[in-house]
């Protein structure tokens, strides 16, 4: 049987790729995709933990599964809102490149 650490490494790798995407990409949509990767990494983590780490060992404990369901419902809502905001920026600036969104400077 595949052991827990394999899943954890997969999740950590996916999370790192997502985080790298967020930090390195300039296109707002690509950044959003990076965030989605990070959330999916969390989902892998949660389901893997649920499968391997159940203190009472019974089938009653569904926390990990339920948590995952909530994570991807929230992720869908986040994408919907994020895309709407990106579209509204595109309409006014004709660009979705994060660096060109620079009216407000610190």
């Amino acid at each position, binding site marked *: 049987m595949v052991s*827990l*650490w394999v899943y*954890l*490494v997969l999740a*950590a*790798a996916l999370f*790192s790729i997502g985080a790298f995407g967020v930090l390195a990409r300039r296109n707002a949509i690509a950044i959003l995709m990076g965030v989605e990767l990070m959330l999916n990494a969390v989902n892998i983590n949660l389901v893997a933990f649920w499968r391997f780490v159940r203190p009472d060992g019974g089938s009653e404990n569904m926390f990990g599964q339920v948590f995952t369901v909530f994570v991807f*419902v929230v992720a869908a809502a986040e994408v*919907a809102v994020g895309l709407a905001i990106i579209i509204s920026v595109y309409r006014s600036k004709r660009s979705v490149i994060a660096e060109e969104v620079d009216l407000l400077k610190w």
Partner: protein
Amino acid sequence: MVALSEFAPIGAMLLLAIVVGLLLLFISRILGPNKPTERKSAPYESGMKPIGPGTRRLPVRFYLIAVLFILFDIEVIFFLPWAVVFRKLGLFALVEMFIFIIILLVGYFYAWRKGALEWE
């Protein structure tokens, strides 16, 4: 309970990722020749000359429909855990689910009333 060893590979992975990433960037900067020509930087389309822009535009209406679809579609996932424990919770669960559906329906009628479902 989890043993420490289960988490150690994450640390090793992170370390390895950082080292390899930096190394690759460094090596390609030093060793790689960089002579871009027009042909080289053209997008590959089976040897053909590219026709038109690669990112073709779709009507923005699709986008609105897609977003509404995602939102209503994903809510169905909540029926799954509900169905699993339905027998145990009985009437209470049924009432709760009806409240959930009513709230969703209100959202749906709101979108309808606002004209989000009209194609034009």
